[in-house]
Each structure stands twice: as C-alpha cells, then as structure tokens.
C-alpha cells in the first residue's frame, strides 16, 4: 500500500493510538465567529462541533475546505486543518487532497453561489468521480457576502439588488443536479432542526465516496424567512416529509399524508385515507437506479410545498482515491518499484566512448 501519509512522514497517529476523548471546545478554533447575528450558519457550526467528538475521528486527520461566500468562512472556526480557497473551486482542491490522502476526512463547505454558479463544473465532476469528500451546501437562495443579489437557487421573479424587476431565471434544484451528476449519497436537511442536521452529517460522513448534503439555511439579513413556510416550528409537521429507509413515506399529523407513485412514474402527495397505507411508496435509499430519488427531489417545486428531507440516495460505488491508489499499487506489484536509472534507459540508448 503506497500510503502517501506515510510516504511523506506526516501521518504519525496509527490506528494503535486511541482517539483522544474530545469535547466541542476542542474542535472550536480561537477565532471570533463573524457571521451576522441570527445567521443560520451558527446552528450548522454548532451541530458540526458537537458531532465531531462523537465520530471517533482525529482533529489532525480532519480537513475543512471551502470556496468563497459567507459559508466559506466555516474552516476558520474549526480547530482542524483547513483551507479557505477561491470561489467555487473547493471541490477541485478537495479532489487533489482526498485522492492523495485517503487517510483524511475531507469536508467541503460551500454555498449556493459558490458551488452551483461559479463552481458548478467542479461540483458535478467531484460527485461523478465519487471522490471521498463530504460536501455541505448551505443553500440560502441568495448572495449574502456581496450583499443581496439573486443566486442560482433563487426563485423566479425574485426581486433583489441585481433584479429590481424580478429574476428571469429558472433556479437549480440542487438535489436533482447532484443525482443527475451520479452522486452516490444525497441528502437534505435544514438549519432549524439540529438533531436532523447532525444525523445527516453523521450519515454523510459514514458514506464512502462523495456525499452531498443540501442544508436549507436562513439568511436573516438578505433573504429572511426563505424556508419559514416549511421549516418554521408550526409548519414542519405538515410541510416536511421525512424520508426513512424501509418505511412508507408519510407525514403530517398522525401521518395523514403520504407519497405514492402515480401511473406515469411521477410521485405525488396524497391523503393516506384516500389511497390506503399499502399504496404508499416505501423509501429505499439503496436503489441503484436514481430515478425514484430524482422524482422525490422534485416533489416540491420550492420551499412552500411539502418537501422531503433526509437521505434520498445512499449507494456503494468505487471511491476515486482508493481506486487511484489501487491502480498504483497494482502496477508496482506487477512491475516492481520504479527505478530512475532504468527509466532513463527505457527507450533505445547508445554509448559513446
């Protein structure tokens, strides 16, 4: 095994050394958190800092990478290795890191502008390759750091500083995009439910390969209440549809609503009383074909209709970095370790004198 971490002498903590017991404090850096008061990012940061002591991972083997935007400041607040890079490129940088350091936990923190606009290309290709990274997309449907322009997830007709007469653009559905990009793990959560969010992070972390989690995140300054209709305490039960593997998909008081698959293959919300429990769609995260997950990702047209949250898809696919290492190992096993002197003579050489 060509363990790069060993090769470069940086990996000193073998499995034999027990993971130290840590608390949230150990995972918090000494930097002052500078998001606007009331920002949804605070909840996400807290959820992460409280989850990590629980995961049995090491701070020194944990890396947070980000691009540009409000969410991208996240790594500064984590007492781990971290990089705040450039706009949209974190998945590309993370690919190089994860492909060469399979021993690391690599988290990519991004926003809707960062990964769906300027960095759209890197996002889809990282998902397609199934690089071992966990991507958390803070979706607030607005550009916050540049003070309030519409984003690629803003709804049509949205009035912002840059669209005083309303946006003319069809928004991206981040989950549909991820599923279309062959993502092997796709989930959605929101910043008003730390428990659910923590569970989604835990699941995403456990998944081998690229994990993609969309977090509905409130920007209380430039897009306040964007998700209020579905994530508000009083609305959740009627508007959020929890996806639970192996369970019929149902929601609302006493589970009175449910999801069925119509004759045309599309999914729709129905009254359980009308169709009967047995007609409900049973959620299967591990379905090889992403078609049904795609349908579920489009059940709601926006955060004003009943919207599924939870794990949409979780399938096993070869992980890019491991495959790359495997290929290198196989060649070394077949040919033996490379020898520079032999390499220089691998063509036709001749001797003078």
């Amino acid at each position: 095994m060509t363990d790069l971490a060993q090769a470069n002498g940086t990996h000193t903590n073998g499995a034999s050394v027990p993971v130290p017991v840590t608390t949230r404090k150990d995972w918090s850096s000494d930097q002052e958190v500078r998001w606007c008061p009331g920002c949804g990012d605070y909840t996400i940061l807290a959820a992460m800092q409280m989850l990590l002591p629980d995961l049995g991972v090491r701070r020194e083997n944990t890396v947070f990478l980000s691009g540009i935007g409000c969410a991208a400041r996240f790594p500064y607040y984590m007492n781990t290795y971290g990089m705040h890079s450039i706009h949209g490129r974190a998945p590309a940088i993370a690919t190089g890191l994860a492909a060469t350091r399979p021993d690391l936990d690599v988290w990519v923190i991004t926003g809707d502008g960062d990964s769906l606009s300027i960095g759209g290309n890197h996002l889809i290709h990282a998902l397609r390759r199934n690089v071992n990274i966990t991507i958390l997309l803070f979706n607030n449907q607005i550009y916050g750091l540049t003070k309030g322009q519409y984003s690629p997830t803003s709804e049509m007709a949205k009035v912002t500083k840059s669209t005083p007469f309303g946006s003319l653009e069809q928004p991206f559905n981040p989950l549909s995009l991820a599923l279309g990009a062959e993502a092997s793990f796709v989930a959605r959560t929101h910043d008003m439910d730390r428990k659910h969010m923590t569970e989604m992070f835990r699941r995403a972390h456990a998944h081998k390969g690229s994990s993609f989690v969309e977090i509905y995140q409130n920007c209380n300054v430039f897009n306040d209440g964007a998700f209020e209709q579905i994530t508000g305490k009083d609305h959740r039960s009627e508007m959020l549809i929890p996806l639970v593997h192996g369970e019929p998909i149902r929601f609302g008081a006493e589970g009175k609503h449910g999801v069925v698959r119509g004759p045309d293959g599309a999914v729709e919300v129905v009254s359980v009383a009308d169709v009967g429990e047995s007609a409900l769609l049973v959620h299967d995260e591990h379905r090889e074909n992403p078609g049904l997950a795609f349908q579920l990702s489009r059940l709601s047209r926006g955060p004003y209709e009943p919207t599924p949250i939870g794990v949409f898809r979780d399938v096993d696919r070869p992980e890019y970095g491991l495959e790359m290492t495997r290929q290198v190992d196989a060649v070394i096993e077949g040919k033996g370790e490379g020898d520079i002197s032999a390499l220089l003579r691998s063509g036709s050489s001749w001797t003078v004198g």
Partner: protein
Amino acid sequence: MSDTTMNEHVSEVLDRVILRFAGDSGDGIQLVGDQFTTVSALFGNDLATFPDFPAEIRAPAGTLAGVSAFQVQISDHDILTPGDAPNVLIAMNPAALKANVANLPPGATVIVNVDAFEERNLTKAGYDVNPLTDGSLSAYTVYEIPMTSITTEVSKDAGVKPRDAERSKNFFALGLICWLYTRPIDATAEWIKSKYEGKFLVMEANLRALKAGYHFGETAELFESSYEVRPATLEPGEYVNITGNTATAWGLIAAAKQSGLPLFLGTYPITPASDILHELSKHKEFGVRTFQAEDEIAGIGAALGAAFGGALGVTTTSGPGVDLKAEMMGLGVSLELPLLIINIQRGGPSTGLPTKTEQADLLHAMYGRHGESPLPIVAAKTPSHCFEATIEAVRLAVKYRTPVILLSDGYLANGTEPWRLPDVADLPVIDPDFASGPNHTDEDGNEVFWPYLRDETTLARPWAPPGLAGLEHRIGGLEKDDGSGNVSYDGDNHERMTRLRAAKIAGIANDIPPTDVDDEDGHADVLVVGWGSTYGAIAAGVRRVRAKGHKVAHAHLVHLNPFPADLGDVLRRYRRVLVPEVNMGQLSRLLRAEYLVDVVSFTQVKGIPFRAASMESAILELIRAEDGGDGRSDAVTSSVGGTPVDGTVPADGKVSH
C-alpha cells in the same frame, strides 16, 4: 545484417545533412521522421529535430493546410539546431512540395512521390501546371519516384487490399532514405514487427514497403551515390534521443524521488502539453498519480490540494490554459505552498497557433495575476535541458514554499536531441523539511504552531500537511497576520506581508548560479542574451559569427525571476546587448526595466524557431555598428513611433530597440 547490408556501392561522406519529410497529416510523416531519427541516433550521429504539423488531425487531404512535416539534421559533429533549410526534401504530394519548396536552397535534392502528382492533387495544392514539368524546379536535383505504385505492387500477393497497401508508402520513403544515407533498416523492421504485432497485414505491408524503398535505392541506379554521415564524436557516455516533454515528465519523476514526495499531476489535455500527462500516466510504478481534471482550473486546483496534503503538486498547460490557472496561482502565492506550473508555450493570443512555438508568455508568468504576486520562473533551453530545469523548478518550489512557473515551448516539447544521461547519484537531493512540531510560544506560555512564522534565511514558511496533532491550522486567500497566519485586514500588516512575499522570491537570487557567459576571451563588445528554446539558434549563430573572426558573447538565462544576482553587472560589461526572442520583446522589457540597460530587441513570431542564419546576421549587424565607431546601433536600425523598422537585417526577424 541480412539482405540490407551495403554492397560495394560507393558512398560519399558528408559532415551533416538536413532532411525534411513532408506529406499529408494522415501520411505518417511524424512516424517515419521519428524512426529515421532513432536510427540515426543509434548510429551515433548528433542530431536535432523539428516536427512541424497542423492543428487539425486530418485536414483535407492534398491541401496546403494539411501538410505535416518533420525536419531532422544529422551530423558527424555536435550541432545545436534542426537546421535552417533542408538539403533534402521528401515530398509525398504536390501540397507538401508547394508548402516547402520556397525554403529550399538552390542545389537541394527533392524526392517526390510522382504518383501523387496527378491533376486532382495538383489542383488541390494550387498548381495550375505540374511543377515537375514546367521547369520551376530547375535549381534542384529532382527524383521522381512512383512510391505509391511500387508500395501497392509489392504487397499485392500478401493479400493486402491496394487501398490499405497504399498507406505504407511512408515506409517506402523511409526505406529509400535509409539507403540513401547509409543506415541499416533492420532495427526499423524489428520496430515495425513489434508495433504492428497482431495486425499481420498492416505489418506485412509496412515491412514490404520499407524493404522495397531500400532496394529501390540500391537497384534503380537513379542516384549517383549514397551518402554517409559518420557518427559524431560526442562526449563519452550513454545517450538517448529525447523530446522536451519526455524530459520534463522524467524530470518530475526524478524530482519526486529526490524529494521523497509523492507526485500528483492535475491537468487538462491541451496541445502541446498533453504528452507530459501521457508519459507520466504510464509510470505508476513510481507512485505517480495523474488526474485528468474537468478543466484547467480543476487541474491546478487539485494539484494545490495535493500540495496541501504534502504531495508534489504539478499542473501542465499551454496557451489559454495558462490564463485559466491564474487565479489558483494567486491562491498558491497566498497559501505559500510548493506547486509547479509547467507552461508549454504556443502561439497566441487566444487559441492562436496550437501546434506552433512561441515564447510570448514570459510577461504573463511575471505579472499575470492580480495583486502583488511574484513567483519564481525557470525556463528550459533545449529538449534535454527540460529534465534539469524541471528538477530545479521543483527544488525552488519546495524550498521556498511557492508556486513556480516552468516555461518550455512547443519547439522544445516535440523537438528531440541526443541526451547524455546523468548519473542518478548526482541528482540534487530536495528536502521537504516538513514542520514537526510547535514553533512558537504564545502569551500564555503555550507551545503553538504558527503557519506563517518564516525561516530567517529563506523567508519560507513551514509546510505542515494534515496528519500531525498539534499543528492544526487554517490557511486561505485572505491576507494573513504575519506569523500567526490568522486573517488580518490591517494595512501595516498587509504592507509587511507584501514585502515579505516579494523579498522571499527576490532572495532566491542568492541561491542560483551566477550568469553563465560564453565569452571566449572576455573581449567581446556584443553580448547576446537569450532564454528558453532560442538557445540552439543563438549558440549556432554565435559560432558562425566567431568562425568569421568576430568576437561575441552569449548568456542564456534559465532563471527569469529572480534573475541571477550578477546579471546587471554582466549586461553593463558589454557595449551592446542583443536580446533575441520569439515574441515582441518581453525579456528585453524586463532587462530594461530592471537594469536601465539599452538592450537591442530582436524578435520574430512566425510560429517557428529562429534560424541560425538570421541570428548570425543580427549579431553581425550589431558588431558592425560597434565597429562603425559611434557606439550606437541607431545607424543600423531605427524605430518609428515604437514600431520596429527592419533596417538592413536580411533575416526573418526584426531588430528594434
């Protein structure tokens, strides 16, 4: 040796010859050019090659746009360039003749595939009259050989379809040329057998064509004699014939080995850089990881991510790809991580001339990022020098924790020359010197790690890849506090950091060799300063000038940022300084700005290398101006409104100042 042994036939001895194979881009010209080169290299000749092909994979057959050519100079002494003008042109069709005939000196030999000179091809090439019959080639010795028909004929009974057999005519030409220049074809026959293993009919057709060409030369009594270019007396040692791109790839592998760092190449296919990816991807036995990214940005981004993780991160590119990588280079400057950006320059702007050479990215390498973001620049000067230059670039990147730009170009990338193999034991050792523990005591007496606490000598910061407990730290593109590396918007700190980053790069001048000046007795008045792939043409031009009894000095810069510490003194030692470049005068601008020396710029941007002859006349012109006594070159050339006006230089370049 079998049936190809030279018989009693008399051969005439030449000290060198320049051959140019030319045909359609689907004719396999590069293949036979390469093969002739290999045979000549093994034979012991010194040589230099210049593949010259269009950007289209298969431009319309028979047209001028589709002509692909391969020029090689072979000699019995050490040579520096593939030669200015061919002594022998092998033209597989009218277009190949038309595209190359203007560059043939009177007396040259022209060997044509006469079968291709029929009306349709003549029209496609734009000939109204057959040049073989209208007397327009009277200055040359023309051999009309029915290559297509003989090639087809010899494969007839092998079951090869005529249309397939016809495709082997390039090997007929190769066989003929091998006879004409007294090289055995056995090695080529073996090569054909292994290359086309499993494709029996193709192999058979090629073999038969090769032999037919060889025997044709021997038996047709068309040629008065064959020629011999004897082995050159090169420095003793083991040699291989190598392209710049292969030397670069091998340099990367060697640098990885010498540093103990795993090599990671993040790249996107682009001409003429892709061969480095191809070569590296073959050598996983060295632990090499190659990543073909979704775009140029991801290529360099992944390389930077790998560098953050403690690998040797490298990206390769050319032309427009360099523009796309600029932002990530800036991040690398801010992160102060080792990173190598290899730019195989090609003609620009925009898509420009993808398969043609140019040196026009020097100023981009210097200044092509926003903000004050200096980084070191290293330039290779010959195909084999790419190996050494690559290792040097890696050394600087690792030692100074900085992105480094290595400049090569299309001419170096694809051109070949014999390379005397270095002793692997003599290669420099590169110490990654990873951070191993805390490096600072904070106010409370705690031992902490400061990612931007610099080494006092090199000003380099510590490199601490993830994995070591206690060294956790965050870096990024925001300005950092000097030492702690925390985000800082303080103006004084920004000024300090800006000057520190600049001083770190400038300080490299103390860590590189002084300017290497080739000045026989130190009495030359004129110094020629070049960089990159002009080395061969300048050195050849200097030899010619010296052969005429004049004195001239030559300095060739490998480090372009920073320059060697003594460069200003060197420039001021000479009365005139000539700076030839395949661009509009980029190094000359830098030299003028840095040293206030009134250098004379000599430029050409034709997508091809300089010729030794034009170098010679440019140097002579400057020497004559000096001898004229007024000490200024204004007498020879002039500038009007900043536009160079070509004075008396009968070259393909412009002298201006």
